[in-house]
């Protein structure tokens, strides 16, 4: 049923909460997993400076140490967890608006299922920080499994 499962991850606990669920499904359906890290252009622009967005566009990602380490750690975590289960994990690093990149990636790579974590924020916090998950739901036609971080507790499955 599921051949290719996409896990968008930024390395946060929230994102990692979805990893176990995704790997579990992948094992069951013998699917391959795509771990996708997205450098949010807005975060780069406001956090590091707009010049750094140009730097990413120029393909200078390898010299942007901290960001690269974050990216490698985030997708590497998925790869490390998948390896003992015999799951093929493709790591991919991209930049842009997260929900758009996720939707595009899913389309281009024939993804059957997107598994992602969510904060389950409400009210003012949601309005301020927004929800990538929510926007992803609206941007893609691929089924999305949302793993609520608060629902998973400390450890899952």
């Amino acid at each position, binding site marked *: 049923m599921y051949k290719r499962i996409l896990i968008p991850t930024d390395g946060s606990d929230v994102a990692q909460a979805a990893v176990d669920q995704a790997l579990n499904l992948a094992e069951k359906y013998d699917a391959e997993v795509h771990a996708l890290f997205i450098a949010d252009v807005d975060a780069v622009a*406001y956090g590091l*400076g707009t*010049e*750094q967005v140009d730097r990413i566009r120029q393909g200078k990602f390898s010299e942007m140490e901290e960001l690269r380490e974050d990216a490698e750690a985030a997708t590497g975590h998925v*790869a490390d967890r998948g390896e003992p289960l015999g799951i093929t994990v493709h*790591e991919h690093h991209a930049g842009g608006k997260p929900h758009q990149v996720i939707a595009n990636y899913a389309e281009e790579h024939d993804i059957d299922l997107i598994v992602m974590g969510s904060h389950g924020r409400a009210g003012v916090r949601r309005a301020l920080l927004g929800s990538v998950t929510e926007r992803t739901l609206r941007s893609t036609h691929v089924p999305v499994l949302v793993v609520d971080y608060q629902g998973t507790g400390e450890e899952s499955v």
Partner: protein
Amino acid sequence: MIEALAIDPTPLQLLPEALDQSFKAIPAITTIGMLVLFLVIGYVFAVADTDDMWVAGRSIGNVENGMAIGANWMSAASYLGMAALIALSGFYGLAFVVGWTAGYFILLIFMAAQMRRFGKYTAPDFVGDRFNSDGARAIAAITTILIGFVYAVGQAVGMGLVGMYIFGADYTVLVVLMMAITVGYLALSGMLGATKNMAVQYVILIVAFLAGLWAVGLTQGYATVLPQIEYGALASDLGAEFTEPFRGDTSYYLWVATAFSLIVGTAGLPHVLVRFYTVENETIARWSCVWGLFFICVLYLSAPAFAAFGTDLYLSEFGTMWGDGGMSAAEGDVIVVLASQLAGLPTWLVGLVAAGGIAAAIATTAGLFIAASSAMSHDIYTSIINPEATQRQQVLVGRLTIVALGVVTTLTALDPPALIGELVALAFALAGSVLFPMFFLGLWWENTNRQGALAGMTTGLVIWTVATFNSIVPETVGFLGDLAGENNVFFPTLETWVPAIGSALVAVPIVFAVTIVVSYLTEEPPEETKLMVRQCHSPEPMGKDMTAEDVVQSTDAVTDGGEDAATDGGEDVVTDGGGDTVVDTEQPETETDDNQSGG
């Protein structure tokens, strides 16, 4: 400090009376069209995704980066303020032309390529990593934000004054409106600072400025092809006030202090330096610097001509220029627009000149506010307060910083304490006193250590604050003005020797001395840090995608494998992160093929 300019120490009149203030349709459309163009470029740039960050994209060339440097750099202070200072105080105003260009030589010779090699993100990043200190990082970040504030006040004033010609509304309304547009845009997208957008802003402002200058020169018979040189013929007509060096209270000392402050300030401004981090390599860093200087000179060589034409036109229209009944400070600040208007140029052309001033102000405000937002979001929030910050949180902190800074700037600009050029010079004195010594010593003397940097930056901040509180703040804050007495200066002697706009002349040697002495007296910095400094000067070309830290870490791993404090993570950087799993992330070296093996 106004007395330094040898004009009456009257408070700024915010009514440039001679300026035709009424709503004009075509200039208004030009301005709005320009703002929409920035929006469109920003939008197109923001939505383009980078599918694979390991694949080389289109690189930014010398010329494009040079234009971006020019736009980032040239603010309302260059576009409007420089001509104003030359018109109102003649020879003294040339300190600004000299200071704001000579600084680029220091950048070119001592810093552009070396900073590129160090390869960090923000200016406080350099300070924090070089001196292994979050304290130093925080001081640098706060200084960056403070520079953004002082500098941007000048931009807000400029936008308000020029806006009066175009929209005919009240100064207060226009400052609030123009700042709201700029801040709103920056808080929504942040892409105003992208290289492409900056290059477009440069083209708009330079075309507007030169078109105005040539039109005035031709129609009034001042000049033909090269007004930048031909204006010299006016010198004898303009009178001693314009041409005689160091007349009145303007001393040699003040001239030197101002020029020096502007030079070191140029080499210490965070939003200028970050442009060099992002280019392909050191050679491009150097050439971008040269091109940047060239593009800046195009405007700077033209500004004195515009000032001379404006002064002559003003004299023939109103009779007097200086002293009572002469040109007010506010009129001076719009002299570029005023000259075009007095020359009887068509409204659309005067409007274009005015719109160029707004473009200049917006471009620089964008650079400053984004530098401030990254200082807060990356250097204070993420690096010090909450290392686990998510990307969304960083965006939120950055946006809040921009909005807060915008509000404070707008409020201050409603009753500005000085001319645009002077306000901006204050920001330069700050950058020159606090950040420049850290960049310079940090790059060139490997023994500069944490304690030295902390002591030096604190000293610089104190000197700048004392100088500013002594002569600038009493002019705006009522009760302090009463306390300070007649000239709005607490200690006149201090003001003479450490003038607020030229405080770096005194501060820089002291900060250097303090930093060096304290560094000698305390423990040497870690070997790792010294190697990083050496790497910034190594004659061997560095690997294409490497930073000094990478090189140090990888040689370290080969020699002894041990690493201490300064590094983060301690991972061998040249290999790719993945273990034995199938990884479609390419190694940094192979940038060419667009691998999509996973799909």
